[in-house]
């Protein structure tokens, strides 16, 4: 016969078994390889497996483990493939100063043994918040010293400089030196403070439609549409939507309702969809959407995670915007697609940090207002987007050169010298651009007032050039 004590202990055992089984099931559910859906329980379970928080660059997608860990137990080779998949193209574009081939060259074996930068994870280890420095670098900040400790031999001006200042004083970057290499400094040493024509490039997509081989020009000829041509089919019409659409470049370029709302199934059957996603935008704006899903606004979508919301951001956001789900139409609005709204108002709906809040006190904003009121020419105003979603030169896959709005706002953000050439130098001298971007306080004030930091790179380059010219009096182009 069971004593009460015995039966009580059996109940406990049973309870323990049930709880254990449930816990195991929950954790297994968290780690199962299916898509991480909207289930918060699943996300919480998975987060317990995180070996440590990831950097600000990856925190949004850290629960999509297999975005980087594509194979179980994969070493740095596997991780490398994942890094290159997302970051390879931008490194090539940046003319990476330290490409992989430098470190696989046998003659650099001795150096590579000290710092094997053939692999991204040598310097950028994830899940190690306690040792992560600026730019997600997990090495001590004097890493340049490992190979360049003799720099003062060639460049006496560098004598006595601290080895943790190479990449932090506004002079050099490890990967991207497009705006900082010596001859570029020389070439722009005498630039006037303001360029001759301080105008930003204009978008030209609409003008080039017939040049793009993948644009459905046959179905939507580049001819302006009128109210009576709208093809919304049997969907009840809505005058507000209609007015919005009629005002857009879409209507002016022949892009009818069906272009976005009608999906053709494999069977050829045409289906109307009320709420198209960025997939639909991709049909014509693939490069813009690619930028969006590479950047902080859309990177979760690229990993099949629920859309980013400001509540998940690591920088200050407005409380009343915390639950907004980010997609193309969050900033562009459906139907109206007003790029002016998307360029300032949309940003300030969510962003609530010092720099953003100071924008409306800046001279950039005054220029923007002037342009918006029609008092100044197109491209003379400076919106949030002018700098963070800049208009850049782009080559389509079929090699047509056009101006693209870079929708990856991180493409020029960190290190911020990446912004100098595509953005700042449209209007400002190289020296002013370098100085302003090296001045943290000035950035907080959204560039109101002069820079209090002065980077001496250009002066040093000019002095070195003058000294070289003196020691080589005959050296001129006369030989050519």
């Amino acid at each position: 016969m069971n004593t009460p004590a015995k039966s009580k202990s059996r109940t406990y055992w049973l309870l323990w078994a049930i709880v254990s089984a449930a816990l195991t099931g929950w954790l297994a559910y968290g780690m199962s390889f299916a898509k991480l859906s909207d289930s918060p329980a699943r996300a919480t379970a998975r987060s317990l497996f995180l070996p440590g928080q990831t950097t600000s660059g990856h925190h949004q997608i850290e629960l999509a483990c297999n975005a980087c860990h594509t194979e179980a137990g994969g070493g740095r080779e596997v991780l490398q493939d994942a890094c290159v998949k997302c970051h390879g193209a931008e490194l090539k574009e940046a003319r990476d100063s330290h490409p992989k081939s430098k470190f696989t060259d046998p003659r650099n074996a001795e150096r590579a043994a000290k710092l094997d930068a053939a692999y991204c994870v040598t310097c950028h280890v994830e899940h190690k918040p306690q040792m992560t420095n600026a730019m997600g670098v997990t090495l001590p900040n004097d890493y340049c010293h490992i190979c360049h400790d003799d720099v003062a031999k060639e460049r006496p001006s560098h004598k006595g400089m601290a080895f943790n200042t190479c990449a932090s004083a506004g002079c050099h970057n490890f990967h991207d030196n497009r705006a900082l290499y010596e001859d570029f400094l020389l070439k722009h040493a005498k630039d006037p403070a303001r360029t001759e024509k301080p105008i930003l490039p204009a978008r030209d997509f609409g003008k080039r439609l017939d040049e793009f081989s993948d644009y459905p020009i046959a179905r939507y000829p580049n001819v302006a549409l009128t109210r009576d041509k709208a093809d919304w089919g049997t969907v009840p019409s809505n005058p507000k939507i209609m007015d919005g659409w009629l005002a857009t470049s879409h209507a002016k370029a022949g892009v009818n309702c069906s272009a976005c709302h009608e999906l053709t199934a494999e069977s050829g059957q045409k289906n109307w969809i009320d709420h198209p996603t960025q997939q639909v935008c991709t049909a014509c704006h693939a490069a813009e959407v690619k930028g969006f899903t590479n950047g902080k606004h859309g990177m979760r979508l690229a990993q099949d995670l629920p859309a980013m919301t400001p509540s998940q951001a690591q920088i200050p956001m407005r409380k009343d915007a915390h639950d907004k789900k980010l997609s193309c139409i969050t900033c562009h609005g459906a139907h109206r697609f007003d790029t002016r709204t998307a360029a300032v108002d949309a940003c300030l709906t969510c962003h609530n940090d010092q720099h953003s809040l100071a924008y409306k006190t800046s001279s950039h904003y005054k220029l923007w207002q002037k342009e918006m009121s029609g008092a100044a020419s197109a491209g003379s105003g400076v919106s949030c987007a002018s700098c963070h979603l800049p208009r850049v030169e782009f080559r389509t896959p079929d090699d047509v050169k056009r101006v693209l709005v870079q929708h990856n706002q991180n493409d020029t953000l960190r290190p911020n010298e990446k912004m100098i050439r595509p953005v700042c130098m449209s209007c400002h001298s190289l020296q002013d651009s370098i100085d302003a971007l090296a001045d943290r306080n000035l950035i907080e004030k959204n560039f109101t007032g002069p820079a209090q930091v002065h980077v001496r790179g250009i002066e040093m380059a000019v002095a070195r050039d003058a000294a070289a010219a003196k020691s080589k009096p005959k050296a001129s182009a006369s030989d050519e």
Partner: protein
Amino acid sequence: MKISFNKRNTLVGVALGLAFSTSAAIAADGWGYKDVADALHLIMDSDRTVYTKLIVNRLQNEEKVIKASEHWKDDKALVLPAQMFRYGSELVAEKGAAFNYSLLSLWPVNKQNAPKTAVEKEGLASVAKTGTPFYKEETLGGKKYFTAIYPDKAVVKACIACHNAHKDSPRTDFKLGDVMGSVVLRLPMK
């Protein structure tokens, strides 16, 4: 080196065979490391000469229609002969080839192109003095290589005009026909 068209084709075939075969020891009867290295170098050297003579020297120095510049992209200019060579070698490395090559000099414009390993130092000095190739085995990063070092000569005026005038060139008195540097080619050894 004088070589008939057919023989050159065979050399190319054998060299490529070595480059892309998994067993890289010996690719064909009687072909040793030196023969393969010589074959690869012959291709490199010929292509390099063609680019310098037909493109750079002709268009920059003779016709004066376009310049060659280190910053060819920013300056909308021709790629330098040394860059042409290096980009090719980087592409070879990217494709995962076992062999590897670079262009070095005792008087480098780019200080990264100075000899670094003991064999490079010995070889570049020897090649500069004799004007003939130098071969030696060396171990780097725990791996054994057959290292071949060839003279890189000033074949046209463009070479010396540019180097003598370059602000980072430690030497300003190169003459036509001088050894300006060396191609260093490494084949992994079994």
